[in-house]
């Protein structure tokens, strides 16, 4: 998948727009927000406080939503959460569900379960709608269809909606507006994710630009919110920095078009709004991460997708190559921790550790640190996370290399041998195109630079000392 994506010029063109419009902009916006001070540290403090006191925050949120007549369910696993949603749907004899964008619903495979139960499930976010029509998964946390160009969307709508072909984004948007309005006005149940919540007032906070989330949370008679247990804020005061950083990081906006605070069913005196409100708080591996102080930081993430927009690896391989709803640098840490580090080893090993993700992260998540740590666990094995050492040979080779590096004589002998030996290897444009034996894996996807004719140490020894002071 990734190997194919690397060659996909169409994909790179589409992703380049993301990088140019959002990636480069986010850091500038942080500076404008508070010149001379890093607002990311304030946002991080707010997130850390919640994660470090998650029990208190969860209990308060649940109590306040229940006090308003809402239902709260804590789901231990994805299956548990899916089961709960299906139960609510069956009780209300739901025929059609409209969904607001929710990565958590992708994580727990909710759509498949609803469809299997005979419930029509319609994604209403334009990007999600496009990938759903295509029968695909989203390729970006906040821009799910970013891997498509406008003419591909035009062809899709012509085929699936029976509309005349156009590649004009406003016309295409109007087509989706028309097709989805009908669905949103006739659905029996709305399911949305949440961007954060306010424990103290008992509200879930959902941002959107399209208005589809307001539709899904206002028009159907039942509204169900799916929220990771960690994605809560304690107070409205904490929302100040958190929301401002979230919208800047996600889309370069000072605020999104709609910020909805929802925390219960409508009152009797309100003529509209859902008559039933459910909040499903999903653990699904998060409390296990919480228990490890080395990785607890990853739970500070606000799922803005900012780290995708600057990641050189994401830009080359696109979101689908990660094989998980959470792609990019955040996915490379979060997915192995929830699905198994050995099984997802390529995710943490495929990153460059360049540090761009940390720089753009609105909560200054140290993803490179956690990526390195995952690699350590793969090399040495780890009992807490049930990690088996990945390769004894690799460990042996790198162990030997480390010894060689620390001994001048051994290093000189080895490099001299290699300098003579490398003349036998095939070359392309002056680079070695194939290494021998087990080292061949390295050159399968890239070339290797040959050793210089003369080593640096030798050149240094015979350098022209008279030029030093010139």
């Amino acid at each position, binding site marked *: 998948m990734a190997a194919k994506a690397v060659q996909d010029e169409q994909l790179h063109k589409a992703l380049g727009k993301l990088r140019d419009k959002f990636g480069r902009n986010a850091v500038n916006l942080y500076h404008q927000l508070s010149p001379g001070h890093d607002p990311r540290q304030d946002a991080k403090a707010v997130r850390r406080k919640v994660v470090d*006191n998650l029990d208190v*925050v969860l209990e308060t949120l649940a109590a306040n939503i229940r006090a308003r007549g809402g239902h709260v369910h804590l789901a231990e696993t994805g299956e548990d959460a899916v089961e709960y949603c299906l139960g609510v749907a069956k009780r209300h004899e739901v025929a059609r569900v409209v969904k607001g964008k929710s990565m958590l619903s992708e994580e727990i495979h909710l759509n498949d379960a609803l469809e299997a139960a005979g419930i029509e499930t319609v994604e209403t976010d334009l990007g999600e709608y496009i990938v759903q029509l295509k029968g695909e998964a989203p390729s970006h946390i906040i*821009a799910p269809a970013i891997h498509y160009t406008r003419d591909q*969307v035009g062809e899709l709508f012509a085929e699936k909606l029976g509309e005349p072909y156009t590649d004009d984004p406003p016309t295409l*948007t109007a087509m989706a507006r028309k097709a989805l309005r009908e669905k949103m006005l006739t659905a029996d149940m709305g399911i949305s994710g949440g961007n954060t919540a306010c424990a103290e007032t008992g509200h879930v906070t959902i941002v959107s630009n399209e*208005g589809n989330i*307001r539709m899904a949370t206002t028009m159907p008679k039942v509204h169900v919110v799916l929220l990771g247990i960690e994605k809560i804020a304690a107070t409205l005061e904490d929302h*100040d920095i958190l929301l401002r950083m979230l919208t800047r990081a996600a889309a370069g906006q000072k605020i999104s078009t709609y910020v909805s605070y929802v925390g219960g069913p409508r009152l009797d005196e309100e*003529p509209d*709004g859902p008559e039933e409100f459910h909040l499903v708080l999903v653990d699904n591996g998060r409390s296990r991460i919480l228990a490890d102080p080395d990785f607890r930081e990853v739970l500070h993430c606000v799922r803005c997708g900012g780290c995708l927009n600057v990641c050189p690896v994401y830009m080359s391989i696109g979101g689908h190559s990660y094989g998980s709803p959470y792609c990019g640098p955040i996915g490379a840490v979060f997915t192995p921790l929830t699905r198994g580090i050995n099984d997802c080893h390529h995710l943490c090993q495929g990153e460059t550790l360049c540090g761009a993700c940390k720089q753009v992260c609105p909560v200054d998540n140290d993803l490179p640190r956690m990526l390195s740590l995952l690699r350590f666990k793969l090399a040495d094995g780890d009992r807490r996370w049930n990690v088996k050492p990945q390769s004894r040979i690799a460990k042996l080779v790198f162990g030997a290399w480390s010894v060689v590096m620390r001994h001048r004589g051994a290093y000189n002998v080895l490099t001299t041998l290699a300098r003579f030996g490398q003349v036998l290897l095939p070359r392309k444009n002056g680079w070695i195109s194939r290494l021998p034996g087990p080292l061949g894996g390295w050159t399968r996807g890239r070339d290797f630079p040959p050793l210089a004719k003369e080593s640096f140490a030798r050149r240094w020894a015979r350098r022209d000392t008279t030029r030093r002071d010139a």
Partner: protein
Amino acid sequence: MSRIIERVRQALGVRAGDGRDRLVFAKSEDFARCANTTATAEERDGWMESIRKEAKALNLRVHECPDLDVCGEAVAALARERDPEWGTLKQIMRWSDPILDGLGLEGRLAGDIAVKTVPVADSFTQTERQAFRDEVVASYIGVTTADHLLADTASLALLGGRGRARSVSLVPSIHIAVVPASRMVGSYRRLLALLDARDLPSNLTLITGPSKTADIEATLVHGAHGPREMHLFIVGS
């Protein structure tokens, strides 16, 4: 429920009832204070400018009116000028609110365009709810006021409640908001402080301009699923 909370406590190595809640929900002094401070005339001047500037980028049309009478006439003129997006019926749905009563839209548009008001009652039957819903769907313009107008981002804060249906600012193609200038606040922080100081309903929405999307090639398009056109009438000074 308690099992997961218990597991979270174990993961954190903490115990229930150890007084951490005081720390977690503590508020800074300046936050509590800023709900009670009044802005200077100079600050307020800057706010109007900020709203105009933000609105331009958002495709939000701002109209400044000296009083409700002038505003009512302007809203009526706008309603006559626009055509419905879905169907041909010209019908307006508005919140039940004294400010909107003051616009006199019913009289100004009599015989021309139907102006409906959100019903006010202690409770509604299923039939009444459906009838109201049909009326909102059939309306091409929704008129609301707002509890607060946030100058920094040109955002409206709408609290749900009696006579203040949520769908009015959402389902019609055009959203018109009529807000007294006295309801302006400077910053998001101050807005949150004001909200924090009151008992909040189950639904609270901040609205900043007409609905939009950038999901096709990151190209900005206005009019996704919410209103495609939005007007803000600021009344008084």
